[in-house]
């Protein structure tokens, strides 16, 4: 066991972990519907052969589908990366590697969150 292991923290009265846990439940339920509808639309009712630039452009004509795709992106990203954060908590013991782990998760969240949001918000069909 390394000497710079992170110890059990003193309770600070923060509800962060409570909200994180509750968010898992809510986002999990939302993702069941979002992901199943996404798979139905993209891979059952339409096949990979139908999906091209025009297909996406037509779909994103509607604010509903833009909102739908954005929600799917944000929920999948935050739900998944929050899980990764807890995996770091459980499996990474040294303080240094924890910083690396948390940073990687935060950077991934920012990059994919910003890129995806920009694409969905600023997309204009030509």
């Amino acid at each position, binding site marked *: *066991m390394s000497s710079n*292991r*992170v*110890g*059990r*923290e*003193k*309770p*600070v*009265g*923060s*509800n962060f*972990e*409570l909200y*994180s*846990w*509750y968010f898992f439940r809510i986002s999990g339920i939302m993702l069941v519907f979002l992901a199943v509808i996404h798979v139905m639309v993209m891979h059952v009712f339409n096949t990979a052969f139908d999906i091209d630039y025009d297909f996406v452009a037509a779909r994103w004509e509607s604010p509903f589908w833009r909102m739908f795709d954005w929600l799917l992106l944000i929920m999948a990203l935050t739900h998944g990366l929050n899980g990764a954060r*807890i995996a770091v*908590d*459980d*499996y990474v*013991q040294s303080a240094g590697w924890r910083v690396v782990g948390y940073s990687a998760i935060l950077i991934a969240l920012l990059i994919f969150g910003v890129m995806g949001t920009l694409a969905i918000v600023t997309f204009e069909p030509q």
Partner: protein
Amino acid sequence: MEVQFRIERFNPDQDTRPWFGEYTLEVEPTDRVLDALNEIKWKQDGTLTFRRSCAHGVCGSDAMRINGRNRLACKELIRDYGDKITIEPMLGYRVIKDLVVDMEDFFDSYRTLQPYLVNDENPGAGRERLQSPEDREVFDDTTKCIMCGACTTACPITWTNKDFLGPAAIVNAHRFIYDSRDKGANERLEVLNSKSGVWRCRTIFNCTEACPRGIEVTRAIEQVKRTLLTGE
């Protein structure tokens, strides 16, 4: 019946890593695993080390891994295991010798949660603190804990995260949080609401499966989570 025992052995003064000792024994099918361990210690190899005390499933000393599952050796009949039995120490804590693990962290987590009645109010001269059978029923399940450690050392989160309080500590906090006579619930809930508290639980149910007293450990942990969420 003849049974072959494979027992994990480790003597820190001699061994660099654990190894398996093999012992063949003539036993009755209705003998318990603890009887066989005693037989081995008394007649074959006196250096075999394990904890046991009451031998009747009450003291919680002889929890160990029997064919891969955490069990009390004194409650398990050999006929339920067949003629090959593997015995290992509980996982997640340092092995002191053979089947004896260092449970200091276990009791440290337990003490963190004030496992005793907290109430400074005077019940009145010559009066007891009374409780209705309904109020007693609320925490009946978690009063059964014997602190054997089977649940905590069956929990994969305990294996990797040394800061997690663990199922047994939460069960013993539960026993007092929902006791109508106790006034210390808020302090315990504050500790349980921290990062190393109930939120590390992934409802894997290993604890419930392992408990030799049949406590619904996961349910107790979920109840604490709901209390933290709803305040009820």
